[in-house]
């Protein structure tokens, strides 16, 4: 099979699992049956196998583009479905299918409490008992994987948009999986609505590029943009429009508000959708579109990413919810990726996408393991001391913490390189690009310092997370906690291995080498100076040291505050801070929700009320008025009809009168006039035609 055929098969294979999951209530009516889960896991694993085979068989840096189905082709506008395969596509395919496989297997264990007719949901005041939905979850999950792969394989913007919206819809289903809980329903709606705001921009950008270029195939877009055939306006509208979509999907400032709420879904969903795949879709699309993005858009991407990195990191310091910390951390890390893409560090940004996918999904799965062990308690202040009870989970989580913090031990070498985990390499690459960029453009110095500070914050909140959960004295919610079963630990261990070693060799290693095989050339822009490769190499050493120092400081502070020696709850050193106004403000995510509620949600609802009111009173009145007017006109017309046309009738002939007499008993008032009008119209039109044509 050729590479495209393999990838197309990999895209649609999970559909089998989706079908199995969605129809399981008919072919597997027993609730305690995992069949759908097994089918789903097999399909996604098969998908991974196909993707891996394709990656191994792909030769050369030439991208493969092709068309599947032309939806329509009018003069100057073509919409079609098709593929565009290069190293980025292949990397994303392997990444998505691998993480999805791990999450799917993990979910087999995580969701085993759904395998009953009487699932008890404890998050209500009165316990809610409902039938389990084990099969349905795997159906949704497979549907999501197909949509995501469809997005990634897309060879033109329209195809990507189709995948984009499908992914959004599946995400809605997955976040709202526990839809009886009001919080889950609200979170799903919020995610959906906020994403649609970005997608409105995406549609505008898509339309602008479609109008300017005639089709939106990446190949032809890049060619036209490179040759300067597209107008600047089209490129700007297109670029900013696509960026708006990506800001929504990748939870960037100012649309980041939906991601923390989205944690209301089951934890495997958070691991797959809201850390590794869907939220990375925005970063992926910016990376994909880079050759067609003008300087203004790239600089906006950099600043938005920079702001998001900090805006995400600060609330993470004060979250008490286990998944909340991880959610804000995801926002912050996505900001890093965007920043890298903005400062022309294409490879660095997407490199971080891959490493982040592994270590973040690892941490979410570990969190899931903890949550199951502690009977769905997620408050870190009630956890603690789980290291002894769950050593494997604790160890795996530690790998994730070290990886995301970018910690390393310089000087000590293993296999000929510094002892470090994947996050160190990717963050190092980002920081060195940012440093080289700010050296070339001193006006944008903030683009290096903010991520550097954020690196320290990252280490701090991650060590806090680990310390509060696994170290210290056992918390109130940890009674009876024990290590998770093998079906949940196996994916965790695989992801831990990947999180530790996938980036081996840094930007000289195999992963980075494969990823950047089709990297776009760094363009030249009027707005800023792109750093040269030599400058980046030179910045490497400084950035590495500074990043390490920042991370080290953060980790040290974390250890001091939340290490094993911390005091029991109620006596902690930072206790006084807990309820300070500024802390509450940061904990609520900078109060964005309140601002949006006041600025957007309330006015919208108010406008709706006003519109309903207008509709009820004014508009109905207007419509009724029109109706009355129409009736009056009709009455007038009729009276003219009866007087005038009746007169004509007598002149025109006896036909109508004859009919009138014949059907006198049943005729209604208009019958005679009907026929008279018919005759009059025919004659009138004929005369008109003769006059017009001959005259």
């Amino acid at each position, binding site marked *: 099979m050729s590479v495209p055929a393999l990838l197309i098969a990999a895209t649609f294979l999970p559909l089998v699992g989706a079908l199995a999951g969605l129809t399981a209530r008919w072919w597997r009516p027993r609730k305690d049956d995992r069949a759908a889960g097994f089918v789903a896991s097999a399909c996604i694993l098969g998908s991974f196998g196909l993707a891996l085979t394709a990656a191994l068989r792909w030769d050369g840096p030439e991208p493969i583009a092709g068309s599947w*189905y*032309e*939806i*329509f*082709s*009018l003069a100057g506008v073509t919409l079609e479905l098709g593929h565009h395969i290069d190293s980025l596509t292949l990397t994303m395919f392997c990444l998505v299918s691998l993480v999805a496989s791990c999450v799917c297997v993990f979910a087999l264990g995580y969701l085993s409490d759904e395998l009953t007719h009487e699932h008890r949901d404890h998050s209500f005041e009165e316990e809610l008992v409902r039938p389990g939905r084990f099969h349905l979850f795997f159906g949704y999950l497979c549907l999501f994987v197909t949509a995501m792969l469809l997005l990634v394989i897309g060879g033109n913007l329209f195809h990507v948009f189709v995948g984009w919206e499908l992914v959004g819809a599946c995400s809605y289903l997955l976040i709202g999986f526990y839809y009886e809980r009001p919080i889950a329903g609200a979170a799903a709606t919020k995610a959906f609505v906020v994403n649609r705001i970005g997608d409105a921009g995406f549609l505008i950008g898509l339309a602008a590029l479609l109008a300017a270029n005639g089709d939106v195939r990446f190949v032809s877009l890049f060619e036209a943009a490179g040759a300067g055939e597209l107008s600047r306006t089209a490129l700007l509208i297109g670029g900013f429009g696509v960026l708006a979509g990506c800001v929504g999907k990748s939870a960037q400032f100012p649309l980041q508000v939906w991601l923390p709420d989205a944690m209301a879904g089951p934890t495997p969903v958070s691991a797959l959708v809201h850390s590794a795949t869907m939220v990375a879709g925005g970063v992926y699309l910016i990376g994909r579109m880079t050759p067609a993005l003008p300087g203004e858009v790239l600089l906006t991407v950099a600043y938005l990413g920079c702001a998001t990195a900090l805006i995400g990191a600060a609330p993470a310091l004060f979250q008490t919810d286990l998944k909340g910390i991880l959610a804000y951390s995801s926002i912050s890390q996505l900001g890093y990726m965007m920043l890298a893409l903005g400062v022309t560090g294409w490879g660095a940004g997407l490199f971080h996408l891959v490493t982040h996918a592994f270590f973040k999904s690892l941490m979410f799965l570990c969190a899931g393991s903890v949550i199951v062990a502690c009977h769905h308690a997620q408050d870190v202040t009630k956890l603690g001391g789980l290291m002894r009870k769950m050593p494997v989970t604790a160890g795996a989580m530690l790998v994730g913490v070290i990886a995301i913090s970018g910690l390393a031990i310089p000087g000590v070498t293993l296999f000929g390189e510094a002892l470090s985990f994947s996050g160190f390499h990717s963050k190092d690459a980002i920081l060195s690009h940012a440093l080289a960029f700010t050296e070339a453009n001193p006006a944008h110095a903030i683009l290096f310092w903010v991520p550097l500070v954020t690196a320290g914050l990252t280490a701090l909140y991650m060590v806090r997370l680990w310390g509060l959960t696994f170290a210290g004295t056992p918390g109130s919610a940890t009674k009876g906690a024990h290590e998770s079963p093998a079906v949940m630990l196996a994916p965790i261990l695989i992801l831990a291995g990947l999180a530790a070693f996938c980036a081996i060799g840094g930007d000289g290693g195999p992963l980075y080498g494969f990823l950047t095989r089709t990297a776009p050339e760094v363009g030249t822009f009027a707005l800023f100076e792109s750093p040269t490769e030599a400058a980046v190499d030179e910045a490497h050493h400084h950035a590495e040291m500074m990043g390490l120092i920042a991370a080290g400081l953060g980790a040290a502070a974390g250890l001091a505050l939340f290490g094993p020696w911390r005091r029991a709850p109620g006596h902690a050193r930072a206790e006084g801070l807990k309820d300070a106004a500024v802390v509450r403000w940061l904990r609520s995510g900078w109060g964005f929700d309140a601002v949006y509620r006041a600025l957007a949600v309330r006015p919208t609802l108010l406008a709706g009320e006003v519109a309903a009111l207008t509709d009820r009173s004014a508009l109905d009145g207007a*419509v009724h008025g*029109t*109706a009355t007017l*129409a*009736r009056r006109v009709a009455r007038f017309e009729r009276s003219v009809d009866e007087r005038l046309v009746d007169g004509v009738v007598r002149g025109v002939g006896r*036909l109508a009168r004859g*009919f009138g007499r014949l*059907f006198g008993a*049943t*005729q*209604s008032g*208009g*019958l005679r006039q*009907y*026929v008279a*009008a*018919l*005759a009059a*119209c*025919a004659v009138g*039109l*004929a005369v008109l*035609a*003769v*006059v*017009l*044509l*001959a*005259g």
Partner: protein
Amino acid sequence: MARDWQGVLPDLALSLPAFAPELIVCATIVALLLTRLFGMARWLPAGSVAFGGSALATALACLQWGGAFESPSDGWAGLVRNDALTVYVRVLCLLGWNLTVTLTLLTGVPRPSIDPADDDGPDFHVPLAAVALGSVLMGQANHLLMLFLAVEMASVPAYVLVGFRKGSREAGEAALKYLVFGAGAAGVMMYGASLLAGVTGTLSLPALGERLALIPLEGLEWNEPGVGGAAIAGVVFILCGLAFKLSLVPFHFWTPDAFQGALAEVSGFLSVAPKIGAFALLVRFGLSLHGPFGETGDALLTGLGLACAAGAAVSMTFGNLAAFAQKDLGRLLAYSTVAQSGTMLLGVAACFLGVGRGDGDLAVAGLAGTLLYLTAYLFLNLGAFAAVAIFRNRTLRTDVASLAGLGSKMPWVAGAFAVSLVGLVGLPPTAGFVGKLAVFAAALSDRVGSPLLFAAALIAAANTVASLFYYFRPIRSLYLDAAPEGTSGAPIGPPVTGSERAYLVLLAVPVLLILPLLGRLGALCDAIAEAVL
């Protein structure tokens, strides 16, 4: 005489296979009449016979696809034309018939009687089949005589169908109005045909253009119109007859009364099948005026195109305005039909103008747009009337107010009705949008062209917005208005059956999923238009 007989057999051999679906319809009619005899109705209900016949005829028509593209031919000694347009009309009309028969089986119309001898089934299905036959014949008439016969074949049984509700004063009046008006229109059309035949000396449409080209239109005097005037009057009178079938203003008077009085199933069918046939006939007749040479044809076609554009603008404006004040669903949809006819006529206008001016692209785009719209319209209108019929079976009323609160009680029917109405407005992503888009694109693509066509397209766009208000009134009633006091909670009538739901979904699916198929369907309509032109 001997030579004539020699030609008959090959002609028969050529015509019969192409005419097979029509023969099936005829056979079905005979079979329906025969079931009354020998007490067969007891084990072979008329509905089943009609369904079998219609399904067979539709299948046969579908099988003829392709062949007609390759070798268009004349049949029955030049009375009918067998080409791509013929097959297209045949498939759509017979499909419409089949869908209508299915609907009557689902809604139980006409009511089954305990006494088989008193069963109304054959009485109902025979005229229904006859209307289908007439519509199909309209799509292939190639001769003035055939034109008249086909129009009457589609009209006369329709009078019976409209008045079918026995004992209903409303239906009787509607049928009488329809009959009287139809008789008038037939008279006018017959007169036009005889004028045209007298002037040109032929009844055959293909020969009409050549003969007309010999008649000068210049220098006609008002008091002495001469041959040219007679020719023009003949053309106009025939067009009046066709406009009656298309319910275009000012020949639409029968439409609201007939559609309100008739059963919703009948209204749905009458608003679709004869209209598809009549549009094809209009195109055939109009194109036949354009001979291979001569300015007369060009002038006639350009004038015809402008007249169509003006008629389109008037029809849709009047239809939409009149629909505003309607309270009865049948009347509302009747005026909507008038407006929809106007929009479709816009494509025909573009086609005629393109031919008259020698602009082949415009002609193809216009005709293809109308054909695409007709395809969409088949599903939209049948779906809307089917929903009305199913509502009527539950509420025993057909006014807009009776829909209040039904959105939650009958979600499937309400949803299908809403989809049809949204499609009739022409909102994306429904089939109505695709049809309107194609027609507008054709009318606006006339860059050098006449201001009148452009103005008509703009009026059509404004009308689309205006039509939103009355199409959304039933939807608002369904979903926003509270159910009337006293009926809330209790279900009305028997619950909606699964097969009724399946039927509505069957009609709604093409409406919703047309966009991905747009490329193929558009190419098909283009091919038909090119073949005809």
